[in-house]
């Protein structure tokens, strides 16, 4: 199964992954409109953590036995039967934050609305997720991992 891997020795902390993630998850898919016009403003699902000189991008790990799915109170967090990815149904999310409590990576974010969570979906429809495709130093890689 393919996953996004972060290489902290290659990350320069430019946060372009956050920018491209936000745009990819916006309505307009346009960088200016996404940042300036969309209300609520879309949220990047990847978060760059920085503690100079180290930095790297953190996004959903799509764990094998995901604590967030087991803990989800509403049934919004489920494993997709077809691709094995952890998918989140924002329509069903009750915004209780239980998944945030049990995520070992701190990789689930509160949506800007403050009512639901937002998570990495590995950019359905794209061959390579937007954060990986637009990382200038290959600090994010999309590759097969063995569980």
């Amino acid at each position, binding site marked *: 199964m393919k996953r996004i891997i*972060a290489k902290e020795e290659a990350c320069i902390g430019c946060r372009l992954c956050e920018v491209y993630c936000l745009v990819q998850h916006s309505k307009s898919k346009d960088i200016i409109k996404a940042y300036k016009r969309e209300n609520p403003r879309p949220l990047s699902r990847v978060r760059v953590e*920085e503690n100079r000189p180290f930095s790297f991008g953190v996004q959903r790990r799509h764990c094998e036995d995901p604590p967030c799915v087991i803990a989800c*109170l509403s*049934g919004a967090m489920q494993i997709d039967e077809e691709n094995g990815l952890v998918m989140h149904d924002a329509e069903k999310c009750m915004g209780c*934050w239980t998944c945030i*409590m049990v995520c070992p990576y701190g990789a*689930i974010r*509160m949506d800007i609305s403050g009512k639901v969570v937002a998570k990495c979906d590995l950019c359905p429809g794209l061959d390579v997720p937007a954060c990986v495709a637009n990382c200038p130093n290959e600090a994010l890689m999309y590759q097969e991992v063995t569980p």
Partner: protein
Amino acid sequence: MSKYVIVGGSAGGIGAVEAIREVDPVGTITVISEETFPQYSRPMIADYLSGEAALERMKYRDDHFWEKNRVQTLTGRRAVSLDLDERCVELDGGDKISFEKLLIATGGKPIIPKIEGGDKDGVFTFTDLSNAEGLAAELEKGKRAVVIGGGLIGVSVAEALVKREMKVTIVELKDRILNLILDAATSDIVEKVIREAGVSIVTGRTVQRVLGRRDDDNAVGGVVLANDEEIPCDLVVIAIGVVPRTELIVGTEVKVKRGIIVDRFMRTNVPDVYACGDVAEAYDFVLDGNRLLPLWPVAHLGGRVAGYNMVGKKTEYQGGTVMSALKYFDIPIISAGITTSESDSYEVLIDHRPERKLYKKIVLKNNVIVGMTFVGDIEKAGIIFHFMKNRVNVREFKQGLISENFGLVTLPASLRKKLFMVGN
């Protein structure tokens, strides 16, 4: 004869069905459930009452969950007794269902104290959807409700009622609301927003009597507190907690204290009989012992572990602990483990910024995290929870745990790689 019989079709029962079917696609499964609703999320009944969630949104699994998992369901039925010699469960109406493996996931029932007048029309409990529906039918702008109990359920129902423009008073026995799950600083934050939303809070008091209405003594007209203070109201909600529903095992050799005792494989003392959820006393990883933990995620996890073990895939239960993620009036709070610490043997790290409604607290014992509270900025609380659950020694980096830039990146690289496999 059914290979697997599960009594209870909520969080635990559903978890067990999913685990069993992962391993055994053909063994017969029977689920006995008193409820006739499609499987729904009980923690969402307050959102249902407030009008924020319709029934459709509350469905914990899709409508075809039982069929897809080839489960024979007996809904609207109650298991009344257990015959361990015959290895069967007897239902209301006298039918007997034999089992090879049995899971008791009967949950809890609300504690109803003996209060004079407590049987009047307009007195509710609040643990399942039928309660929420009953209460929803009584809602009317400006009506007055008294909620007995300022715990998780009481505050949830109070929030829902005030959102429906009712006038609400919470009566709490102890000196502060949410005292079992939050420390005083955090419950103060919640109390403030609740009061701002118009809810009255009375602490250190119990309800002595429910009064009738002047024109109809069978209907609720008010309550009298222990200090003889009278609060007029139209509804009373009793929300002082739940106790395990252990009726099924009464008179059997299944060992029970307050709940049914299970080991790290969710087994009771009787072979092939398992228990999980609100009815069980299972492992707590902070306490390092068994306790009641009537919490939805704990029930679901316990059900999964029971299911794996019932089907022969030996799986150890990692345990749960007191853990609450809260969203009262849109203030995010995560609190887990030991939150109040009077003893000197604990070390406490605190970062409190009241002006921004931010609060972080970590409780340590011998450099191992045993408790945590996060208010406002909660996105990285899961990393702390992970340390707590895995009893990681944090001596080298504990001061950073409550800093604003705390994250995977501030951890020692070796630990980060070992625990999280980031950057490999």
